[in-house]
């Protein structure tokens, strides 16, 4: 799901947004505080978080990335690094390093052909599928989605057609970050909330993008499942200790063999 947001942003804006993991963390915190401190129900917290992050995303795009569209790509990378520093340490300074746990909306446990699954996990999986479908529908079927896709394919062309490419950029970024927020909020009851929770996730998200090929939605989804499968296989059959080492090492190998990503289109 995070990868989906990343892919969206990357595909349209060509911004490799490293700070995505940090935004995911912020999303989880926003939800946490609206649920725990203000006593909102879980779903309202989720929506609050999505809306907040949408605004944050648009703001970040406007202030940090937009001035860099015609500059070398490295700059966008470095800006993303700056954003990570700001968000992570900001969260650390404001909310402290403690781990927080978000109460799950439903603590029901379901037994499914012998395997025990908590309700929350099912919600996560269902939500992931739903979001994938929704994003796909949005991009392919709505007017706004068409405008975004046009922007992705040809900036100047889209501009000539009267599309406000800057606004599209902002909206895309906003949607991308709100997807991250959804992921953060959904995962929070399973894992814990802490300032650097985005770090391992961002690595994984990039893995998925690389495997899936940047900017391709289906690739991101397929990549996500492939990596999940691989992770389980490695940790159950080879070693639990060096799972990450093998995974990320494999990735470098993938890139070496196919420098534009596994399913990526050649540039």
């Amino acid at each position, binding site marked *: 799901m995070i990868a989906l947001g990343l892919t969206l942003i990357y595909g349209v804006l060509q911004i490799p947004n490293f700070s995505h993991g940090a935004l995911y963390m912020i999303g989880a915190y926003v939800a946490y505080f609206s649920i725990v401190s203000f006593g909102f129900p879980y779903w309202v917290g989720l929506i609050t978080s999505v809306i907040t992050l949408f605004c944050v995303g648009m703001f970040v795009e406007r202030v940090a990335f937009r001035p860099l569209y015609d500059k070398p790509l490295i700059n966008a990378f470095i800006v993303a690094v700056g954003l990570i*520093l700001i968000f992570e340490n900001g969260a650390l300074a404001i909310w402290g390093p403690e781990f927080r746990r978000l109460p799950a909306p439903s603590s029901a446990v379901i037994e499914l052909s012998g395997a025990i699954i908590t309700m929350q996990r099912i919600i996560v999986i269902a939500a992931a599928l739903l979001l994938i479908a929704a994003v796909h529908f949005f991009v392919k079927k709505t007017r706004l989605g068409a405008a975004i896709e046009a922007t992705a394919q040809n900036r100047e062309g889209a501009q000539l057609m009267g599309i406000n490419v800057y606004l599209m950029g902002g909206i895309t970024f906003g949607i991308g970050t709100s997807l991250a927020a959804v992921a953060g909020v959904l995962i929070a009851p399973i894992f814990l909330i802490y300032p650097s929770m985005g770090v391992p996730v961002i690595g994984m998200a990039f893995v998925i993008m690389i495997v899936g090929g940047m900017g391709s939605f289906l690739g991101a989804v397929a990549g996500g499942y492939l990596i999940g499968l691989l992770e389980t296989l490695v940790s159950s059959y080879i070693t639990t200790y060096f799972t990450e080492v093998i995974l990320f090492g494999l990735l470098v190998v993938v890139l070496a063999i196919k420098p534009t990503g596994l399913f990526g289109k050649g540039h």
Partner: protein
Amino acid sequence: MERVIDTMYKKSKYKKLIVCSILLIIAIVAPFAFTSEYNRHIMVMCGVWIIAALGLNLILGYVGQLNLAHGTFFGVGAYATALLMQKAGIPFWWALPLGCLATAALGFVTGIPTLRTRGHYFPIATMCLGIAVYYAIARWDDFTGGACGLYGIPRPGSISLPLAKTIDFESTVACYYLVLLIAVLTIILMLRLVKSLTGQRIMAVRGNEDLAQSLGINTMKDKIVCFTLSTVFAGLAGGIFASYVGAIMPENAHFLVSFEMLLYVMIGGVGTIAGPVIGAILIPVLSEILHFMGSLRLVIFGFILILTIQFLPFGIIGGIRVALLRYPGLTGRSVGSE
């Protein structure tokens, strides 16, 4: 015309030489001005960061490739040197070059696949590499001490000078001079490299790879050599760090270290020699001054980093150059000659 340029060039060279010698003298007498152990410790660390930042600057500033595993190579150098000293019992003066060699070997082996990538994939590939190496260090308990790290790494052994004197490196001041010496040597090497035909060639690779190739430049070879060379300096800094501090942890190989080095290079001035040096002094010092703010200071640095890229793409040094260009009266000569 030619002569005019020549004398202009010599004049500016002369001025620069004076400025550099003054700075060097300041660096040499600095420990006498700051006598507290704490201040001296920061000075040593600045030296270590200068070496590492110059390494990053070579690949980022001159070849134009953002390596997000530079901090990892720093850690690899630190671990290699420490392990050689602790497990193999090799003295520092051999362990350090061997540690650099080990780092270079890893840099070379990983540089070949990662540098094949194009566009945005290089930073991502190096980031993945960094994460993989970080976990390898953090999880390999028997060899690297795992998450606890390594402790009790000895300081550099004392060396005897011909005049029956020996220098030992138990004091911070002695370490400072050692680091200063190595940092100055690094600066000189970098300057010579950049201002040579090779340097011109490297910058050609950054400028336009296709054009460079059409001129007979083996761009891949230059990228790999520079990448390897940059990791040598990362390893060198790491090795000194390990021996000086005496303890290292997996966090020293984390990509956050890369981010910090990136901060030094970008804010100081990427693609210049003076920039990373200034950045590697200014930021750690500032960071210590702002220590009371806790993690908020990194937030500030994040903002500074973003603002720098938006408004001063070549950092402090770039800003100074633009200022001089706009107000040539400040120095009495026009800037533009390197």
